[in-house]
């Protein structure tokens, strides 16, 4: 009623005060909410299951520190684009500087240390925001939009009505996910198959050879392994491996000498792979 009968300037002054109070109240509320979010994020990182930990980790790594520091350094209400720029940017900046500080303090960059350090930065920031807001609530009027470029604040927020736009956005999201799935499936190995053969000196025992075969052929494959020492065949074995399957063995060698291992593809019998090494005195 008073407002209705007062002069225009008084009306504007009261309205501005109301907006300032409302802003302070809302911001104060968001500090408490921010502290709760931080606690949930920290617990999720340290004890949560994998999918929740991913969300929490990205939130602490790329969002929360930037959100809080930006609120301190730019308390005016930033327009959407600037907020979208500064939140991940300052979060990454904080992560980089925090990493340097942790390393300088001889603290390893482990999950626990990252979670504690970035949590501390965010919590400290939240405390500062709460203090600043109390200060502003008491006397100062927030300088809204003083840095927003060219009156940009009036262009914030979109209202989405109807179903067409959400449907189109859903199509876009599905198409992007589909593209990534197609791309990832397409990157599966589709070239020629191959097989690895290796031979290494036995651990500890000088007179033994560790042998291995790993098949990356496109289909199940049969092999024959022939082992010879100084030209004398000392063992042979037939194996069948599925794609991705490995075979390993240790071949004892009684005398020092040159061990040669040949891998033949079956049927056929042509030498497919071969390795050789010296064992015993002066070898391997």
């Amino acid at each position, binding site marked *: 009623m008073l407002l209705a009968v007062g002069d225009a300037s008084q009306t504007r002054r009261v309205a501005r005060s109301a907006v300032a109070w409302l802003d302070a109240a809302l911001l104060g509320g968001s500090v408490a909410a921010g502290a709760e979010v931080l606690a949930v994020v920290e617990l999720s990182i340290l004890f949560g299951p994998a999918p929740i930990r991913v969300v929490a980790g990205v939130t602490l790594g790329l969002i929360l520190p930037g959100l809080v520091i930006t609120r301190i350094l730019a308390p005016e209400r930033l327009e959407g684009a600037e907020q979208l720029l500064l939140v991940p940017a300052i979060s990454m900046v904080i992560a980089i500087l925090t990493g*340097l500080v942790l390393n300088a303090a001889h603290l390893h960059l482990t999950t626990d240390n990252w979670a504690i350090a970035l949590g501390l930065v965010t919590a400290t920031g939240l405390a500062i925001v709460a203090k600043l807001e109390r200060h502003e609530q008491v006397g100062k009027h927030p300088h809204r939009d003083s840095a927003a470029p060219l009156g940009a604040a009036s262009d914030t927020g979109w209202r989405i009505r109807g179903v067409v736009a959400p449907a189109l956005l859903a199509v876009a999201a599905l198409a992007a996910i589909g593209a990534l799935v197609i791309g990832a499936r397409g990157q599966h190995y589709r070239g020629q198959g191959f097989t690895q053969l290796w031979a290494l000196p036995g651990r500890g025992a000088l007179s033994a050879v560790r042998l291995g075969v790993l098949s990356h052929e496109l289909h199940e494959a049969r092999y024959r392994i022939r082992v010879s020492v100084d030209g004398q065949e000392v063992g042979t074995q037939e194996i069948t491996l599925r794609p991705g399957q490995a075979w390993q063995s240790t071949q004892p060698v009684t005398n020092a000498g040159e061990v040669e291992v040949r891998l033949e593809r079956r049927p056929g019998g042509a030498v497919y792979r071969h390795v050789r090494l010296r064992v015993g005195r002066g070898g391997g």
Partner: protein
Amino acid sequence: VANTAGADHDLGLARPRELLMDGHQTTDWARRADVFSVSALAAAAGMGLMTVALADTVARSGSSWASPWFWAGMLMIWMPITLRIVEREATRSERIALLVLLGMAIYVVKILNSPRYFVGYDEFLHWRTAEDIVRTGTLFDPNPVLPISPSYPGLEIATSAITELTGLSVFVAGTLVVGAARLIMILALYLLYERVSGSAWVAGVATAVYFTCPQFLFFDAAYGYESLSLPLALLVLCGIARRRQVRGQRQIGATLLIILPLAAMVVTHHVTAFLLVITLLLLATFAVRLDHGNTRLWLWGIALIATGFVLLWRYLVAGRVIDYLEPPVSGALSGVVDLVSGQGVSRQLFHGYAGPTTPPLDVLASFAFTAITVFALALGWLHILRTRRFDALTVVFAVGALAYPASGLLHFTTFGAELATRLLAFVFVPVAFCIALGVSAARARRFNTAWVVALVSISGVLLYGGVVTGSASWSVHPGPYLVSADSRSIEAEGISAASWAASSLGPGNRIAADRINTLLMATYGDQLPVATVGPRIGVAPVFFSRELTPYERGLLRRGSVPYLVVDYRLTRSLPWLGIYYDNGEPGAYAHRRPIPTAAFAKFDRMQGASRVFDSGNIVIFDIKDVARGG
């Protein structure tokens, strides 16, 4: 709104109807139109991404249809969005949303090239540093494949944070970090251009023009330090433009929002840090003459702080950065000097080292890209002179854009060409702004449907020309294995051999290998590749001779190399990038025939060498006895 309108009037840009749309105030119907157009264009971009994904899939089996499919997908993403950005009806919010959509869609195109693992050469170099940080929990561990990388660990620290906090692999965490950096870059570019020009239209067009930069699609979206440092540098410049508009106590916060990214950028990438310091010094110098108030002193303060950060970091951590940067820079400059003085031979443009020469369409597009860029740049400079837009940032942009034509000579030298291409990512920041100003001058005179269609068509040519200028045609898509062709050489057999080395030989063995297997052994294999055995003495000659001479045995002894990796595919093709091992190898960039098989077969006859691994193409020799002098 008044500010924007005024700015646009100053530029001769604004017309009565477009003030509403070109500025910031939007009506309810406009917002609804925004949402609809952005949603529709997002759906179109999604379809474009599907097309690109299918193109990449068929490209892996070597289909010749891959390239038309790929470009069809790219144009499905590019054309509708740029059309809307160029139109005057688009609001500021819509422009920003569309630029974010476009820039991020282009980033997804890069991911689709290899969505499961790193394949870019530089990505492997930084992956090793990131893996070391994650494995040891400490910074500055030596990196055998890029020794300077641990001295600038900003990107890898951020990746380590995400990896540790989420439990994701370094590849996925790195992709997220570079994705966030890409978002920062798009928005920082837009806001910087908007603050300097005072026009949402100019900012939108300039940002879209920057997307055609030859480095934007692949190199600056790869997992490398520049992909993060450049966005941080742009954030610093954006912060400076913002700080100039802030008054009162808020200036302290605004200044800290410059200094924090500045500090992070300095520890992320050397060249970006040096170029930013030069830019800030130029800006402060011009501000003395062109700006008023306390801005001049304040800008000098920022420039000196940046200089101090760079010097301090070099003193504390990155002492060898000059040694690292000196050879390529001096090589490029001496190449230019030789060329100008008539002593050097010009590098053959569009020449393929191994396969067919560049397709005629790509040559044409590349020339068109350069011609359009230079022409539009000239228009921009003329517009700045005509309208006397002599504020410090605009003048710095105008001066910085001179580097584009000035760097042209570098393309005619072997070592300068790579340097010039690398510099484009930085040079294009002012170039794109000047081009947008030049186009805006034309817009002020004529703005009809034909003009818009012409502009969007030219932008399509710029996109195609930019990509083929920055990347060889065979590297734009994935595909079957090629010899020494970076991303096209990363395949299962090499990865599997390196993984075997990690599990069977154990980590940290010194190992000599070709360019590609060096990367794989350093990352998947966790080995210590040896490229040199002394100042500028490489081990590459060991792999080229038909017989192992005492000199080459001496190299192996000096390098204490216990393992050699031999890839027989190198005997079947010339190297697509001109080198098999390194720049110092015999016949570098001038190979006429592949390495003879006998050069590799000699290791089978070498006394004291054991052939311990054979996967068909790749063979690993244990030469501990040879390295010990046995």
